[in-house]
């Protein structure tokens, strides 16, 4: 056992990478839930995004096109959820679970010829001077662009929900859809937009795993990150910055426990492997002990009665 082998700078830098897929998916789902829709299909949309992004970037040679395709892939799959829950008014929980099962199976089918292929690399950004600052440079300014997209998206979602009229209407729809309808807002339309946004974000998150974090394609490679994202939204009390905090915490402990495993710490591997899940949930439960207010219409089907 040699803890000295763990490089703190690399550790922090890689925790941000480990956290990004989770953050992207959670921010998307946060918007969906703020609009009053519970989409349990995050895992399915992520894995479909992962393979769509992987396939397109292999075929075109452009990781950027891959990420665009991943967002579209995730959104297209969420369209299925839209059809089920917003048009056919089916139960959201069952539809979301179906979406995940479908996404896992469908991505395996799509990905058959891509197993073992290496995707084109996106490359990290390098800003002269800033990126070369010791310690801070490698931690904050030597990552791939999508990681910054994730952080920017968090800030954008936070500001939109808090300061803009669109955000206010979105929250209103999630809070009391009957009242929003009575005031003349298009509840279904707003929810569809939110679901599509959530699908696109989940798709991006999935592609981040297959194109940057792991870079390769394996069946079921999202490995439950979609479910963690769902839990993260709840424990983050539907607050974007808390979701970011939770994602980094989860990413951090994931990376740390991998490092500890490599360093040969005398804790059974199983305990180390489960630690990110347990610690993240514990911390967020404590954080959400204040009045964690779920959107009041969350998961309820809206049907205009007149």
């Amino acid at each position, binding site marked *: 056992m040699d803890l000295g082998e763990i490089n703190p700078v690399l550790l922090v830098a890689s925790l941000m990478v480990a956290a990004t897929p989770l953050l992207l998916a959670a921010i998307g789902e946060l918007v969906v839930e703020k609009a009053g829709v519970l989409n349990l299909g995050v895992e399915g949309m992520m894995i479909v995004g992962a393979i769509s992004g992987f396939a397109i970037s292999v075929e075109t040679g452009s990781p950027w096109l891959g990420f665009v395709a991943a967002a579209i892939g995730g959104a297209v799959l969420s369209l299925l959820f839209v059809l089920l829950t917003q048009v056919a008014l089916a139960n959201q929980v069952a539809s979301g679970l179906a979406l995940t099962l479908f996404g896992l199976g469908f991505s395996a089918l799509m990905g058959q010829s891509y197993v073992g292929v290496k995707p084109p690399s996106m490359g990290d950004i390098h800003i002269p001077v800033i990126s070369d600052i010791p310690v801070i440079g490698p931690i904050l300014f030597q990552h791939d662009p999508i990681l910054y997209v994730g952080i920017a998206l968090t800030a954008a979602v936070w500001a939109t929900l808090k300061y803009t*009229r669109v955000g206010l209407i979105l929250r*209103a729809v999630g*809070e009391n859809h009957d*009242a*929003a309808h*009575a*005031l003349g807002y298009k509840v279904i339309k707003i929810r569809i937009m939110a679901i599509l946004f959530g699908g696109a974000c989940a798709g991006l998150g999935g592609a981040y795993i297959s194109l940057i974090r792991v870079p390769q394609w394996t069946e079921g490679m999202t490995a439950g990150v979609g479910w963690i994202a769902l839990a993260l939204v709840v424990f983050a009390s539907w607050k974007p910055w808390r979701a970011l905090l939770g994602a980094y915490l989860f990413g951090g402990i994931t990376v740390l426990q991998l490092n500890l495993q490599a360093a040969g710490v005398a804790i059974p591997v199983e305990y180390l492997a489960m630690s990110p899940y347990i610690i993240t949930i514990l911390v967020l439960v404590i954080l959400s002990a204040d009045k964690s*207010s779920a959107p009041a219409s969350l998961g309820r089907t809206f049907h205009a009665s007149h």
Partner: protein
Amino acid sequence: MTTPLLSLQGLTKAYPGVVANDQVSFDIGEGEVHALLGENGAGKSTLVKMIYGLVKPDSGTMLLRGQPFAPPEPRAARADGIAMVFQHFSLFDALNVAENIALGMENPPPMGDLASRIREVSETYGLPLDPYRTVGDLSAGERQRVEIIRCLLQDPKLLIMDEPTSVLTPQEVEILFETLNKLRSEGTSILYISHKLEEIRTLCDHATILRLGKNVGECVPAETSARDMAEMMVGSTLQTPERSGREFGEVALDVSGLSVPSPSEFGTALKNIHMTVRKGEVLGIGGVAGNGQDELLGALSGEILTAADAIKFNGQRIGKLGPTARRKLGVLTAPEERLGHAAAPDMSLTENALLTGSVREGLESNGFLKWAETKSFAEKIISAFDVRTPGPENAARSLSGGNLQKFVIGREVLQNPDILVVNQPTWGVDAAAAAAIRQAILDLAAKGTAVVCISQDLDELMEISDSFAALNEGRLSAPRPTTGLTVDEIGLMMGGAHGMEVAHV
């Protein structure tokens, strides 16, 4: 004659199985307070939804200042100066006052400006309001202010108010009326929907009466007696329940020092409640909705458990017993919300009869259900309480509100309770059915049952209860005999104007 502000001509709207509005025509003049009067289900709400653009009429036209007016959506109606205060408030609990108001406006100014305009308008009309408070924490009267101010900020030409006083104390009603009078003096027309006749007589210039979707008459309320209006509304003469003088027995229900937190986030905790109800006595509990009524019913039914000796039944401590154990003893309850609390909407009447009747009526043995007995119990309720339904196999949801209410109350009454607790027994029920339900409650009391009737309808409480107490912010006033109580005293028991500033207009 000048052109009326809004003229309705032959408006008709049919839903599957029912014609909600049938050739309704009337005019609303400029600066007029026009009452729309009718029982529940008379088509008042559908009519105003058409004016507000939420529902499209099947036929008929509307003219606004002589111009054709057919708003495709509420936005268009608001742009033309129509504003509406909803009966069930269309507010968002988790958002603050300013955010709620911004949602009801087309082009809201930035939040800071909006907040100062809310302050300004609310002071002008004597409805002080803090723009940054969370709506979920406001009282019913304050919530209504939010709705009214939301409307006023848009300079409405016509303000529609759907049953605005059903959630207010008499003192709060007075403040509201002063505001409405000020609006009228400024030239705003008001369409005032209500079934409270005395209010209409004091406030309104003109009244249109709807019955079963048809315009059955118009009158000038100040010159028409309440009784005449009521008979136009109902279409027949009204029966008042009879109350025979009776002796009270010993104390059946003894509640002392009952304090429980509310199970829901925006609910009201009960604080140190004391009351006793004797056998044969009807205790009426008034108060504005949301002051602990649901919690009190829950504590008495056993849905909320309390300290064992906070509630005693014939001297036995039952505070820690659940609903089934209490039912076995003879403590029965009928909650307010018919669909979802008192009855399971998608289950048949037979199944619903079983749900509360199984213990006392012996409808199950060794875990198996006795469907034949259950069905005859359901049929007994249907015939005894004149529930209009094709049969007990129909889903609870398919019944009209009044019929389901008769079923829900009848189900408890027929189980011969020793104590019956009802919450809003006649809410949303037409006058004839309401009279039948009240009579059933009185008959039950005459047989020696102790009855607790929680209601927001003060007239109802005065009619059936022997003593009266009021819930206000989770506290219960000391019960007083009903005879001799004045409206002012009742209003004060209900918390007066809840510390709201009186309108200075």
